[in-house]
């Protein structure tokens, strides 16, 4: 997994609540058996005027000029500013794969759906929960200022605004450690092989029908 330490990134505002993972990456793209290449189809139904299917040349499709990601001032954005319950619905990890492949490294919202939130950390994406009033203020600031960037420091757990204001954010210790060091969980978990085996033996004795 790609490490995340520091970012000074352009912010794009996606001003709607309950953005679901079907919207982030529509079902037809889930037929892929790969982990990569979903970026051009992130938010496909909102982003293009025509209907997208796997295998299309996306550079030849008509972008929807009204969709915020298509506006010239937000090109190259790495920070997605969103509203409450971002990433709800389907557990598809294709959603964080698509956002990461698009170029996002940080998502800021007042709240996230649990499965999506968890999936982000497995893919070098940092989801940050901020109070709704701070998110509101950021929406106003981004819309008012071209080229609005935020500095995100995972080690310090801070977001620094262009005017020098610093917001602290929470992240749990295990996820922070993995993200800072680009570590995948499997290797870490396999350091506990003996614990798992010991548990399994005890569990088998208590509930033998699970192993029949």
């Amino acid at each position, binding site marked *: 997994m790609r490490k995340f330490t520091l970012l000074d990134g352009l912010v794009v505002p996606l001003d709607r609540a*309950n953005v679901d993972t079907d*919207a982030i990456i529509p079902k037809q793209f889930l037929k892929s058996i790969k982990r990569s290449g979903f970026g051009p189809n992130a938010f496909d139904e909102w982003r293009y005027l025509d209907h997208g299917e796997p295998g299309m040349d996306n550079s030849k499709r008509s972008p929807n000029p009204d969709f915020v990601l298509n506006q010239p001032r937000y090109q190259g954005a790495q920070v997605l500013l969103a509203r409450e319950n971002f990433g709800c619905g389907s*557990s598809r990890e294709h959603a964080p794969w698509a956002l990461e492949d698009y170029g996002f490294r940080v998502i800021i919202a007042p709240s996230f759906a*649990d499965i999506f939130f968890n999936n982000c950390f*497995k*893919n070098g994406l940092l989801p940050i929960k901020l109070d709704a009033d701070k998110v509101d203020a950021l929406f106003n600031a981004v819309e008012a200022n071209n080229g609005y960037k935020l500095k995100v420091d995972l080690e310090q757990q801070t977001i620094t605004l262009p005017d020098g204001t610093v917001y602290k954010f929470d992240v749990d*210790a295990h996820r922070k450690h993995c993200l800072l060091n680009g570590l995948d969980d499997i290797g870490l978990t396999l350091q506990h092989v003996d614990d798992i085996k010991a548990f399994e033996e005890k569990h088998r004795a208590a509930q033998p029908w699970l192993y029949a």
Partner: protein
Amino acid sequence: MSAQTLYDKLWNSHVVQQDADGTALIYIDRQLVHEVTSPQAFEGLKLAHRKPWRTASMLATPDHNVPTTNRSGGIADPISRLQVETLDANCAEFGVVEFKMNDIRQGIVHVIGPEQGATLPGMTVVCGDSHTSTHGAFAALAHGIGTSEVEHVMATQCLVAKKSKAMLVKVEGALGHGVTAKDIALAVVGKIGTAGGTGYAIEFGGSAIRALSMEGRMTLCNMAIEAGARAGMVAADETTFTYIKGRPFAPQGENWDKAVAYWKTLHSDASAAFDAVVELDAATIRPQVTWGTSPEMVTSIDGRVPDPVSAPDAVKRGDWERALAYMGLTANTPISEIQIDKVFIGSCTNGRIEDMRAAAAVAKGKKIATNVKLAMVVPGSGLVKAQAEKEGLDKIFIEAGFEWRDPGCSMCLAMNDDRLEPGERCAATSNRNFEGRQGQGGRTHLVSPEMAAAAAIAGHFVDVSKL
């Protein structure tokens, strides 16, 4: 030991190891596998030269991509076909039990797990699918995971997790005529919102829940995720044991007695404390119909499409306005005046035998309305289909003008050829009314099987409690 919730009991009995910050390794008893969220996980295993820790804990079936007609001819779409063939190849290579597309035991993963007795009380169950919460109906701790976690569970038999908070949704009293578990589920989502259960595991309790069949409990737990909760669960009781007994993967003989003795402990202790409690009165729940693009945008058959002017705040007002525009609805329209184009009966929410029976009872001797272009019934598994045919339900549907299809996820998410065209309006027994969910530009109204069948006959929504 102090009083424990069902969730405490399930969690505590699976902790392998726990860090100071609460991050734990949780042992997983059952992993269900389908074709969409597993190929990258199997590939990850292979790249790292790893093998699944315990293949006997896995059960696989293709469900999202499979066609629901002319199945003997294979899958026409080459990309879908490759995904299903990849599942077949991976299961063969690693020795995972798979019910392939033309096996009568094939079906939607959340229908076949319980049907086979592969979902048991006290288990931890995971699957790369958010509707894994369904299995909590058996007093199991079951939730959806991402593909990285699918690979992690394959490789280590464990999941890295932190304990959620516990919520009790208590539904007391008796449901009225024509009111179902689906209506409870939608009423709960409407009450607490799609993020109301975020960070929680929900236990459904109360006399109305105890009175539900296993099918009804599965419908309810299935939609816990629509309220934001990864896991939903119901205490084990005689209804649970009766359902499981004799199923292929269920314990037998001496093991059965031992298992039941343990399963009888799988309920919240009388004085157990929950972090949140939500109460509903079953008698006041009416048949539900969603009007918008989120399951929380729901009202009853007596209701009207809401006016965004009355939304509680500016963000919600914007969401409601967008939803009405997408749905092609005008504020204040009575729900019963909304005309539909298509009907979809099926899915992991409502694709079980009881759902087929309920819909057939409404359709019996009737004909679908002339404005309904397509009404399809998609059983949740090959065995549900066979049972329905044994009972003659297929004939009732076909005579009424419905199409009787082969099992799979079908038009719940439209990964196969079953989908809505732009602007088409559908009464669906599935779980999500998101924009584009049933096909780009498609408009979904979530309802119970009875309500969907009645809408097919009338051509618009009608109050099944008055039929």
